[in-house]
C-alpha cells in the first residue's frame, strides 16, 4: 500500500528539489557533489559547511540522509589522525564507531581521538530543511507536513502547478489541507484578482500563522483593489475572533495547570495543617526531599527515565512520609494544642533539612531529565497547543486528590483520622489510638508533599531552596480554601491559578501575584474560615 503512491510522488519531488537548489551546484556530476561535500564538511568553517550540506543533499546519494541526520544529532565525528568520518556512540571516555561512508563497524576507540563535526544554528536550520526535502517522500505524514510547511515560506505564484501535482498524490488529510493553504497563499501573491478573491474565501478562519501574516501584508499593500480589501478584512476578522477564542482557552489551561501545581503543593499541608492543626513550616522541605528522591532514583537507573519517574512516586512518598513521622514523633508530639509553637519548631527543622541537603548534594541545582512522553506538546490547531508535561501534572494532581479523598472517606484509617480531628477525647474513648493516628496523619501529609516534589522536579529546579518557593503559596491556598477541607484546597488552588493567569497579561507577573495576595488578605477578613468553612465543633 505504501509503495504505490510513493512512486508517483517522485516526479514532482524531483522538480521541487531542483527548484530549491542553488544553480551553481547543478552542473556537477552527482557523485562528485557528494565526495566534494564530504571533504568540505571535514575541513571547512561554518559558511563552507553550509554549502557542503546543500551539495550532499542535492547529490541524491543514498548515504546522504543518514549522514545529515547524524550531523544534526551531533553523532558525526572525524578521527583526528586520518580524518575518517565516523558515526560514534559515546559512553564515558570510550566511543563505539562505525564508518560514515562505508557503514562498516570499526570497533571501539578512545573518545579523545575523535573530534566532533560541529554545527551552529544556521546549519541546523538548513540541515532540517534539507532533510525535510528529502523527506517529502517520507512515508510518515508528519514529516511530509513539516516539509510542506517549510515550502510555504518561499512560495511564489509559479509554484501552484507543482502544488497541484503534489496534491493529486497526497492521501493524508492534514497534509492535503496544508497543501491547499499553500496554494491559496501562492494565489494571493499572484496578480490574478479572481483567483485571489477565491483564495481569500477559502482562507476564512484559517489559523495558520503564515496565512495571518500574508493577509496583513496584503492589507498593507498600497492601491489594493477595493473588493479584495473588503474580502481580506472579512477574513482577517474571522481569523481574529477565532484567535481570541483560542487565546481564552489557552489562558484557562495555563491557569488550571498553575492551579494544579498549587493544589499539589498545598494538599499535603491541608492534611497536616487542616486535620491535625500543625503549622508545618518544614512542608516545603518535605516537597524538596521528594524532588531529590526523584533525582536519586533517576541517577540509579539512568537508562529508563520513564520507569524511574514511576518508581519515584512511591519512593518519594516513603522518604518524605518517614521523615514526617520522625518529625512528628520527635518534636511535634510534644507540642499539640500549641499551634504557634509548632510553627517555630518546624521552622528550625526546615533550616536543618535544607542544610542537610546542601551538605549532601552541594548547593548546586541537580538536573532531572524529563521522559520523552512528557516533553513536547499536543497541537490542537496551529495556534493552540497544550504542553504534555502540564497536562500530565494536571491529571496527576487530580488523581492524587481523588486518592487522598477516598482514603480519608472510605478507609478505616481515614475514619480514625477524621474522628481524632473532630473530637480527640471522644475518639480515644472509643478506642482509637490517637497518638498512632497523629503520627500516621502527619506521615500521610508529608508523603503527599513528597509526591508533589516528584511533579515539581519536572517543572523547576531541584535545589535546596525549592521548598521555600512554595511554602507561602501553599499556606495561602489552604487558608483561602478553608482549613480542614480537601475540596476547599482543590477549588481554592485552581481558582487562584486561573485568576493569576487572567490578571497576568495586563498587570505583569509580579503585580498579578501581589493582587492575589491582597485579595486573599481581604477575603479572609470577610470570611475568616475560607471558601468552605468547617462546620460544627471542629471549627473552633
Amino acid at each position, binding site marked *: 500500500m505504501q509503495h504505490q503512491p510513493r512512486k508517483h510522488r517522485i516526479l514532482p519531488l524531483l522538480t521541487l528539489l531542483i527548484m530549491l537548489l542553488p544553480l551553481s551546484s547543478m552542473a556537477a556530476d552527482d557523485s562528485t557533489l557528494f565526495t566534494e561535500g564530504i571533504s568540505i564538511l571535514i575541513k571547512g568553517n561554518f559558511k563552507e559547511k553550509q554549502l557542503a550540506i546543500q551539495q550532499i543533499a542535492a547529490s541524491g546519494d543514498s548515504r546522504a540522509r543518514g549522514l545529515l541526520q547524524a550531523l544534526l544529532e551531533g553523532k558525526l565525528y572525524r578521527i583526528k589522525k586520518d580524518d575518517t568520518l565516523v558515526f560514534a556512540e559515546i559512553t564515558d571516555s570510550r566511543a563505539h564507531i562505525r564508518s560514515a561512508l562505508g557503514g562498516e563497524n570499526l570497533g571501539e576507540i578512545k573518545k579523545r581521538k575523535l573530534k566532533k563535526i560541529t554545527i551552529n*544554528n544556521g546549519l541546523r536550520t538548513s540541515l532540517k530543511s534539507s532533510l525535510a526535502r528529502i523527506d517529502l517522500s517520507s512515508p510518515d505524514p508528519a514529516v511530509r507536513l513539516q516539509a510542506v510547511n517549510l515550502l510555504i515560506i518561499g512560495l511564489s505564484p509559479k509554484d501552484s502547478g507543482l502544488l497541484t501535482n503534489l496534491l493529486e498524490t497526497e492521501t493524508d488529510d492534514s497534509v492535503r489541507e496544508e497543501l491547499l493553504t499553500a496554494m491559496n497563499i501562492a494565489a494571493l501573491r499572484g496578480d490574478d484578482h479572481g483567483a485571489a478573491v477565491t483564495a481569500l474565501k477559502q482562507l476564512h478562519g484559517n489559523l495558520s500563522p503564515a496565512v495571518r501574516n500574508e493577509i496583513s501584508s496584503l492589507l498593507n499593500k498600497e492601491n489594493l483593489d477595493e473588493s479584495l480589501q473588503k474580502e481580506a478584512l472579512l477574513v482577517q476578522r474571522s481569523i481574529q475572533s477565532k484567535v481570541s477564542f483560542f487565546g481564552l482557552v489557552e489562558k484557562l489551561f495555563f491557569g488550571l495547570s498553575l492551579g494544579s501545581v498549587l493544589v499539589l503543593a498545598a494538599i499535603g499541608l491541608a492534611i497536616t495543617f487542616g486535620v491535625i492543626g500543625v503549622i508545618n513550616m518544614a512542608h516545603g522541605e518535605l516537597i524538596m526531599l521528594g524532588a531529590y528522591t526523584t533525582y536519586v532514583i533517576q541517577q540509579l537507573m539512568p537508562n529508563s527515565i520513564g520507569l524511574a519517574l514511576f518508581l519515584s512516586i512511591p519512593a518519594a512518598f516513603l522518604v518524605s512520609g518517614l521523615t514526617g513521622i520522625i518529625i512528628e514523633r520527635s518534636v511535634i508530639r510534644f507540642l499539640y494544642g500549641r499551634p504557634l509553637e509548632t510553627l517555630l519548631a518546624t521552622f528550625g527543622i526546615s533550616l536543618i533539612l535544607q542544610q542537610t541537603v546542601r551538605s549532601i548534594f552541594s548547593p548546586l541545582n541537580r*538536573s*532531572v531529565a524529563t521522559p520523552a512522553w512528557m516533553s*513536547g506538546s499536543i497541537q490542537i490547531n496551529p495556534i493552540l497547543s497544550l504542553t504534555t508535561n502540564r497536562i500530565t501534572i494536571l491529571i496527576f494532581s487530580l488523581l492524587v486528590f481523588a486518592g487522598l479523598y477516598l482514603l480519608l472517606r472510605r478507609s478505616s484509617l481515614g475514619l480514625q483520622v477524621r474522628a481524632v480531628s473532630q473530637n480527640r477525647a471522644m475518639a480515644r474513648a472509643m478506642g482509637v489510638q490517637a497518638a498512632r493516628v497523629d503520627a500516621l496523619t502527619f506521615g500521610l501529609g508529608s508523603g503527599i508533599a513528597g509526591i508533589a516534589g516528584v511533579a515539581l522536579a519536572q517543572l523547576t529546579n531541584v535545589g535546596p531552596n525549592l521548598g521555600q*518557593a512554595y511554602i507561602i503559596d501553599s499556606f495561602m491556598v489552604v487558608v483561602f480554601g478553608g482549613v480542614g477541607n480537601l475540596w476547599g484546597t482543590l477549588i481554592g488552588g485552581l481558582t487562584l491559578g486561573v485568576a493569576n493567569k487572567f490578571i497576568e497579561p495586563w498587570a505583569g507577573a509580579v503585580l498579578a501575584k501581589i493582587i492575589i495576595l491582597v485579595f486573599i488578605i481581604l477575603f479572609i477578613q470577610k470570611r475568616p474560615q475560607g471558601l468552605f468553612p468547617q462546620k460544627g465543633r471542629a471549627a473552633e
Partner: protein
Amino acid sequence: MKSTLLAATLGCALAIGSVFTGHARAAETIKVGVLHSLSGTMAISETTLKDTMLMLITEQNKKGGLLGKQLEAVVIDPASDWPLFAEKARELIEKEKVAAVFGCWTSVSRKSVLPVFEELNSLLFYPVQYEGEESSKNVFYTGAAPNQQAIPAVDYLMNDMNVKRWVLAGTDYVYPRTTNKILEAYLKSKGVADADIMINYTPFGHSDWQSIVSDIKKFGSEGKKTAVVSTINGDANVPFYKELGNQGITADTIPVVAFSVGEEELSGIDTKPLVGHLAAWNYFMSVDNEVNDAFIENWQSFIKSEKRVTNDPMEAHYIGFSMWVKAVEKAGSTDSTAVQEAIIGVTVPNLSGGYSAMMPNHHITKPVLIGEIQEDGQFEVVWQTSGMVAGDAWSDFLEGSKDLISDWRSPLSCGNFNVKTGECSGSK
C-alpha cells in the same frame, strides 16, 4: 539573680574576647579575604567562587607565596544577606586586616559593601558580569561590563543570524533593567522599530513561564526572524528553558541568547532541549588552549571531582588574583594605595588564550565569545571578537552616563568625570 549576672558577664566577656583575638597573629602571613555567600539563595553560585579562591591561594603558596610571605585565606559567610555583606566586609578589613578582598556576586551585595571599602580604603575584586554605571577607586571589576557581553551578542544575532525582532526578557532587578535599556537604545540606533522590540520582566525565581513563553511564540510567528535576549537570573532559568522546549521553541526557530547561563547553571539542567541556544561570555570551559587545560585539571583535582565544570566568573577571579599578585610584586607592598597605583596597566594571561589588562577605569580587557549549548552541557564557540574589548564603566547608550568617563590615574583620578561640565561628581 546571681546566675543572671554570671551569664550576662560571661556573654560580655565572650563578645569582647572574640573582638580582640584577631589582632594577635598578623605579620607572618598576608591575609586575603574571601567574601562569598555559602548559605542562602546565592550559595548556589558563590560557593564555587570561594573554592576557586582557595585553590588560587594554595597554588600561589606552592609557588612560594607573595613577597616572601605565605598567603592566608580568610573565608567568611555573608549568608546572602545584603546588610551582612557590609558588616562582614568591615570585619575582614578592620578586624582581620586583610590585604584585599575577593568577593560578592549580586549587584546589591557590591553596592552594600562599596561604602565600607571606600571608607577604609581597601581593595575589592568583583568577578561577575554587571550592569556597569559604577567605577570606584577601591573596586576592580573583572567581570564583563555591558559592552563586553550584551552588545557583541546582539551584533552577532543581527549580522550573522539576520534577526529582525527582539524579545528582551529579564528578571526585575538592576542588571537586566540597565542592560535592556542599553540594548533598546542600541537596537533603535540600528533602525529597529518599537513594534519589533518586546520587553518583559519577571520576579526572582519565577517558575510559571507558560503565558510568557506563549507570548514570545506569538511574537515570533509574525514572519520576521526573532531572537530572545535573556537576562533571566539563576533559578528562573530552568523552568524557562523547560517551557521553551515543551512549547516547541527550538534554537533554530527562536534562538535565546543568555548572559547569566554558564556551564555551572547548565549542570543543573537537562540540556537536550536546549541544544543550539546561545550564551555570551568572556570565557567558556571548552576553549581549547594549554593554560585553560591546566586550569581545569588543577580545579578538578583540587575539588576532587572530574565532573565539576569551570565558568566565566571563575576565570574572572583567576585574572583578578593574578593581577593583584603582579601588582603587589610591582609595588613591593600590599598597601592599598600602592597597589591601586601599580595595578593599572598590569597585563596577565587570561584563560581564553590572550592577555587581559587592567584599564585606568578599573575594568579589564577581555575577548567576547558566543557559544552554542551542546548536549553535554558545554558550549561550542561559534563566534568571537577578533581582539580584546575594553570594559566601559559608563555606557554610551544611556542618557545620564554618556558624558561620563572614569580614569583613576593622576591627575584626573576620578570615577565619574563629566566631559561636558568638566566636573568630577560623587566619589573621588
